[in-house]
Structure formats: structure tokens, C-alpha cells
């Protein structure tokens, strides 16, 4: 599995470098304007970071798409690797590359902002909250990508053509998202128990929804792994 991660990161190296360089150069330019754009510069820096994250997330999705629809799939699916290995390596790669871009974007923002926002946050945030945010960052990437990968794989298996498969995957994603959100809301209403994250503010989390999300992730991860190993036809 670690070899898979190594080669996937190597394959996306230029994309990651390109995005990071764009963020760095963009922020350096904004730093030259920070005196005249006192509010505009940090806002633009935020947008730049957000845009970079969107691009790297799309690149993470193309990781799977390339293997499902392009000739590279012959290289991956003839390796003696299980579906679980393939899925896990995909997710770990995505977490690493998204985290790299996030760290670069946040660091550049802090430099531009001269650490004002960071200091303000650190003064109010507790350590356990910081850990919670980091965990939530990882969880959001992993659970969202697992859900998307599942839709892509189902689309690929159910609809053989490249174009039809991709459109089908999007429709499956759309429908399943509605169903999943509906179920999550229903469970939250049925089991309204909450956990308080922050000791001062009212930041809370619904226990029922959280368990539902974890179970859904487990099912989707295993289902996608199974489909990748036993059902995908190239």
C-alpha cells in the first residue's frame, strides 16, 4: 500500500507544486499591496487558498477517474493489491496532498496577516478543540472522498461508457447525497443527544448523526473496495 501512495504522490507532484507555487506567488504579490488593500488583501488571500483547495480536491478525484477510465487502470488493477489497499492508498494520498496545500495556504495567509488572526484564534481555542478541528479536517476529506469514489465506481460498473459513466456517477452522487442528508437529519431528530465540544461557546455535535456518518463511511469504504477488486471491468 505504501508503494501505491508513493507513486500516486509522485504522479501528482507537479500538480501539488504548481498549486503551492501559485498560492505562494499570489500571496507575495498581495503582500506588496497590503498597505493599500488592508481588508482586500487578506480576503483575496483567503479566496486564493480556497481556490487552491478546490483544485487539489478535483485532482484527488481524478486520481480515481484516471484508473477507472484510462489505460493507467491496466497498471493498477494487474498489481497484486487488494481493493482495501487501493482504496486506503487513494484516501491517504488525498489527505496528504490536500493537507500540503492547506498548510501552505494557511501559512501564507498568516504571513500576510502578520499572525493577527492566528493569535486571536489561539487565544480563544482550547487544545482539545484544535485537535477536534484537525480530526474533522481529516474526517471531512476521507468521508467525502469515500462517498465520491463509491459513486464513481458504481457509475463505472453500471454504465460502461466513459462519458455516460461520468454523468451517471454525478447523478448517483446527487441522488445518494439527498438520501444520505435526509437520513442524517431524520436520525438527528430521532436521537437529539448532543456532545458539547467547546467549554465556553455552544459548539455541539449530534451523537446520532456522528454514528450514522461513521457507519456510512465504513459501509461505503468496504463496498468500494469490494467493487474495485471484484467488479470493475477494464
Amino acid at each position, binding site marked *: 500500500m505504501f*508503494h501505491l501512495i*508513493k*507513486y500516486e504522490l*509522485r*504522479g501528482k*507532484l*507537479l500538480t501539488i507544486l504548481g498549486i503551492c507555487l501559485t498560492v505562494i506567488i499570489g500571496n507575495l504579490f498581495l503582500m506588496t499591496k497590503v498597505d493599500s488593500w488592508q481588508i482586500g488583501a487578506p480576503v483575496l488571500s483567503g479566496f486564493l487558498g480556497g481556490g487552491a483547495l478546490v483544485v487539489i480536491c478535483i485532482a484527488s478525484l481524478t486520481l480515481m477517474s484516471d484508473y477507472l477510465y484510462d*489505460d*493507467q*487502470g*491496466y*497498471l493498477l*488493477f*494487474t*498489481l*497484486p*493489491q*487488494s481493493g482495501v489497499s487501493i482504496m486506503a492508498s487513494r484516501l491517504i494520498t488525498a489527505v496528504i496532498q490536500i493537507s500540503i496545500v492547506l498548510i501552505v495556504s494557511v501559512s501564507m495567509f498568516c504571513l500576510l496577516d502578520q499572525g493577527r488572526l492566528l493569535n486571536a484564534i489561539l487565544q480563544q481555542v482550547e487544545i482539545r478543540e484544535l485537535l477536534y478541528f484537525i480530526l474533522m479536517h481529516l474526517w471531512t476529506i476521507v468521508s467525502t472522498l469515500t462517498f465520491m469514489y463509491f459513486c464513481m465506481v458504481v457509475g463505472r460498473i453500471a454504465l*460502461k461508457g466513459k462519458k455516460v459513466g461520468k454523468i451517471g456517477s454525478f447523478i448517483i452522487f446527487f441522488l445518494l447525497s439527498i438520501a444520505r442528508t435526509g437520513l442524517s437529519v431524520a436520525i438527528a431528530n430521532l436521537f437529539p443527544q448532543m456532545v458539547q465540544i467547546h467549554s465556553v461557546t455552544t459548539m455541539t455535535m449530534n451523537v446520532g448523526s456522528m454514528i450514522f456518518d461513521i457507519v456510512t463511511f465504513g459501509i461505503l469504504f468496504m463496498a468500494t473496495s469490494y467493487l474495485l*477488486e*471484484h*467488479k*470493475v*471491468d*477494464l
Partner: protein
Amino acid sequence: MYNVLEAENLCKSYLNKRALRGANLTIQQGRILGLLGPNGSGKTTFLKIAAGILHPSSGKLLIDGQEPGVYTKSIVSYLPDTEYLFKWMKIKDAVQYFKDFYSDFDEKKAFALLEFMKLDANSSVKSLSKGMKEKLKLTLVLSRKAKLYILDEPLGGVDPTAREKILDAIINNFSENSSMIITTHLVNDIERIFDEVAFISDGEIVLQGNAEELRLNKNKSIDELYREVFQ
């Protein structure tokens, strides 16, 4: 000698097409089998099922007694007829890739074969011509000590000189403990290396036998026999 590959009533259907209609085929250890047939006869479908990247609709295919999966992929060395190597790779990266993933990969043999094929390890994969890519793919595939080699059109798009080189590489690197299945349209060029041949037509094996016996019994070369079967 045991059967490395056994296929029984193997069927594969797509939405509006039946690519395999109950194909039966066996390959013994130490034998090279030529799977011959015209375009669309089901050759590549059969090989893809054996390589574990396509799943049969019905029937059974066993490699070393097991259904295609993680284990069989570790003992099958498959040469597809696609350009499947990453474009960012240099030749030495591709060698390293195979070394990382296949425990039976022989790096020394790979570099010896690269030299034989006159390929520079520092060349970029995307800068190679079609023939050179074919040689590289073959180098990687033959550098494994696999139980079964599956070569799909190894001579496709390759000039006659390179064909000879590729055939020499196949013969020189084939071990008696392995088996090989090769598909090709260029029957005349390659028939000298076949121990067995199987003719496939419309998803069915219509004739299978020992290459030498077929030549003697029919008093024809395999190429002539191919033309007779598929005329």
C-alpha cells in the same frame, strides 16, 4: 505436468454482444500457446479475464487452481496492448515500479534486457516510439519469474527487425517452469515459438492442438491453417 490455466465454458457478455461463448482452454506448465483469431473473436477478452481485469459472466477460469484475484496477479505477468505506463516515468522509474510491486521481479535481468533492446534507462517513457514502448513493456513483463506470461499482441505496431528482437527475447527468457499465452495477427512471424495453438472464433475455441502435430497432420504451416480456418 499440471495445467497452469484451465478455462471451462467461459462466457462474457456485454450489453449487446457476447464476446465469449463457452470457451474451453487449458495450458500446461512449460508450454507456449498461441491464441489465434481475427479481430473481435474474443482473444483479448479471454486474456483480460485471465489477467484479472475483466470478470466472466459465467463459466470458470482457474490459474494455478485459483480464480483470478490478488494471488493470481502475483504469479501472472501480463502484457496488455495498451500504453499503460505513467507518462511522468523514466524507464528506470518503470523498472523500480515493477520491483516495488512484484516480489518475483528480477532487476538485473531487466537492465540486461534493456541493454539487449537498446533502451536507455534514463529515457522518458513519453519520448519513446511505439516500438520502443513495446520493447519496454516486454522487458518489464519478461523480467518477472512468473508462472504464467500473458502477452497480448506483443508484436503490434513493431517493425520486422524489432519483431525478431522481441521474439528472441521471449525465447531466451522463457523458463520450463513457466507457461505463456500469446495472441497475434502476425502468425507467420511468431509461429515458430508455439508449442500449442488454439484458434478462437466468435468467442469459442474452434481448434486446439499441438503445433507440430497440426503441421504434420494437416501438412500446412500454422499460418496457412489460420488462413484456412478464418477465410
